[in-house]
């Protein structure tokens, strides 16, 4: 509120990277002295809003599909770029780590399995691929429950509403989810890499924020930021 | 207003209640019906206790088997005339009685109208019919004929008397109409400010004035007085109307404008004409 709002950077951030982004924001503010405002939303919603002229400077998406879409529509001069690769985990509130075994998913005492909605969330698509590859899909198809986002899927898991579910490593490692049950990473060979991309949104030539937006965008790919991503379980 | 009333009506009697506007007549009927709760009181009907505030006994209105014609009718607006009449009948009870009342109250042609499509007097008759079809033990009537012309009024008065005779119900009738009291009621209670101010048979409660039986005295006031030829022309306020009188000239000295007087007629000279 003290610095002029017109000079504040507005970073549209997909929900599942918001924890990381808070750290990145703090680092960037320290380094550049600029104020940054994080706007959290689902990637799809943010994409629709950006297309209709939302006043965002950079869009940090959960995958590459949405930024590609924006780029194709002419929302940016620069093609999107992957800033991190996510890792998928199998996670349960009650089952011990030893119990998080592929073959046990078929057993009768596992009633419900949560995955993020593959239609909208990249982690959901990855989970689906893994389930197909292991050949489990036909056996557990009726057990599947779809979370709207990675966060909602985490809620299903941590509330004990489902017995087990797929999620992002970054979520499991976040401070809010510490000690919430047990998890095991999924073999990366079972799913295509989850490429999370960001895009620098178009600014007019005389925009006050043009330079700082670029600086922020570059910062995402700096070693300093990449360290933070790794700390949260991204590769 | 505080009310304090002690009243007993022999079973099958017809009682009229009268009194000025706001005297508590409607309130009394509502208390008898169980729609209002007096602070303290006892109501016993036919050796059945309806209310005893000291013992906390209260029989709800729907158990009391009464008929009530409300001053404002309170017809059900969503039901037709015939449905209004049938509402209070136990299911499966035959409808001939409904038809009979429709006919006797000249409502047959209106049977399928809703209350909003009826005139004031038609509504009042529906309210009366609705109370009667249930053949109640106690009938409470709050000015049930006030909106009716005198022919209809007389014929419904006769119908009520007939029914009461046949069925022997007890009847309490609120009315402002002196003629109705004399015709309909065996006894009358006069209320004022929530108290009984007089009760007894109509003749006891309304004693004739101390007048010579063969004369009639009226009260009047002089409005205009003129000398005309060989007589006085007097315009006077008599019996609530301006009337013209011819008087001999010798009255001139005794009368002035605004003066009150009595006028006495020897009724042998009267000509009476029924209307």
């Amino acid at each position, binding site marked *: 509120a003290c610095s002029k709002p017109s000079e504040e950077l507005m970073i549209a951030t997909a929900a599942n990277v918001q924890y990381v982004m808070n750290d990145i924001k703090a680092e960037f503010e320290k380094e550049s002295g600029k104020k940054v405002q994080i706007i959290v939303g*689902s*990637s*799809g*919603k943010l*994409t*629709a809003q950006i297309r209709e002229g939302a006043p965002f400077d950079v869009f940090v998406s959960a995958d590459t599909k*949405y930024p590609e*879409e924006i780029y194709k529509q002419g929302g940016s001069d620069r093609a999107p770029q992957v800033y991190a690769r996510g890792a998928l985990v199998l996670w349960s*509130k*009650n089952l011990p780590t030893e119990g998080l075994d592929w073959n046990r998913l078929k057993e009768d005492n596992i*009633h*419900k399995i*949560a995955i993020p*909605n593959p*239609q*909208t969330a990249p982690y959901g698509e990855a989970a689906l691929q893994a389930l197909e590859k292991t050949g489990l899909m036909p056996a557990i198809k009726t057990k*599947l*429950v*779809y*979370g*709207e986002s990675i966060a*909602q899927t985490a*809620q*299903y898991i941590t*509330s*004990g*509403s*489902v017995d087990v579910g797929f999620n992002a490593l970054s979520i499991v490692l976040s401070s809010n989810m510490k000690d919430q049950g047990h998890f095991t990473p999924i073999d990366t060979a079972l799913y295509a890499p989850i490429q999370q991309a960001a895009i620098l949104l178009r600014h007019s030539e005389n925009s006050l924020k043009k330079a700082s937006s670029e600086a922020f965008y570059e910062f995402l790919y700096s070693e300093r930021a990449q360290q933070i991503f790794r700390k949260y379980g991204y590769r | 207003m505080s009310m304090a009333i002690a009243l007993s009506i022999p079973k099958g009697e017809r009682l009229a209640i009268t009194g000025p506007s706001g005297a508590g007549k409607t309130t009394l009927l509502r208390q008898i*019906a*169980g*729609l209002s709760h007096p602070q303290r009181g006892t109501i016993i009907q036919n050796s059945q206790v309806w209310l005893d505030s000291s013992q906390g006994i209260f029989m*709800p*209105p*729907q*158990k009391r*088997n*009464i*008929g*009530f014609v*409300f001053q*404002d009718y*309170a*017809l*059900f*607006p*969503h039901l037709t005339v015939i449905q209004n009449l049938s*509402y*209070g009948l*136990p299911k499966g009870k035959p409808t001939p009685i409904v038809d009979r009342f429709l006919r006797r109250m000249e409502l047959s042609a209106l049977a399928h109208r*809703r209350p*909003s499509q009826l005139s004031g007097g038609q509504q009042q008759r529906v309210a009366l019919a*609705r*109370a009667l079809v*249930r053949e109640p033990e106690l009938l409470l009537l709050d000015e049930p004929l006030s909106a009716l012309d005198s022919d209809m009024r007389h014929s419904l008065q006769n119908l009520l008397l007939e029914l009461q005779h046949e069925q022997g119900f007890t009847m309490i009738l609120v009315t402002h109409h002196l003629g109705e009291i004399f015709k309909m009621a065996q006894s009358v209670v006069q209320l004022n400010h929530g108290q009984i101010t007089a009760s007894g048979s109509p003749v006891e409660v309304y004693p004739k004035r101390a007048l010579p039986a063969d004369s009639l005295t009226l009260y009047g006031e002089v409005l205009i007085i003129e000398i005309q030829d060989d007589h006085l022309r007097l315009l006077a306020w008599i019996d609530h109307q301006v009337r013209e009188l011819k008087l001999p000239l010798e009255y001139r000295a005794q009368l002035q404008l605004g003066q009150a007087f009595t006028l006495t007629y020897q009724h042998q000279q009267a000509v009476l004409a029924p209307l």
Partner: protein
Amino acid sequence: MMDWQPLWLTFKLASITSIMLLFLATPLAYWLAFGRFKARGLVEALIGMPLVLPPSVIGFYLLLAFSPSHWFGAWIESVFGIRLVFSFPGLIVASVIYSLPFMVYPIRAGLQAVPQSLVDSSYILGKGPIETFFRILLPNSKPALLTAFVLTFAHTVGEFGVVLMIGGNIPGVTKVASVAIYNEVEALNYSMANQYAMVLFFISFIILLFVYSVNNRLLRVRK
């Protein structure tokens, strides 16, 4: 290609919810309108509370409560043998809770507007409170009942926050049309979203049009 199942689920959910609420809300509305108790304002305010929290948050709290690892969810499961999370019965229960104020408030206002003298008349004609309620109070609150029903029905058709959270978006079980449309929009499949929206819109419009036309015809006769 469009999947008709979510639409079918939607209208099933909306109908069942509205009808169940009608039965639940009218006694509650009656009690609020005529009951003798001190804390009326308190209860009235409480009934409105499901509205002030965001639907997905209500959904979240319901998820916690309905979850088999919570005593409430466990109790329901042991007594009724129903698991309320990720099941159609759960959607119904959640919708009923969430739409309660849409049903209760208008009906309460309608009941209160019926003249006391009609109720008195009914008692005098030998009918008890229950028969009076059904034969006098309800028929004379028809516009209010209609309002309540339409608001509840339409709102249940469109609601998705609660349903999405507690239903788990399972095709054929809890994936209702609103959730399907939401998904298509999120996935940037706008033409598919448009198709769904049009059909939902059109069917709902036909239903409401029918309801109001019938109602207006009836009202006209009675005027």
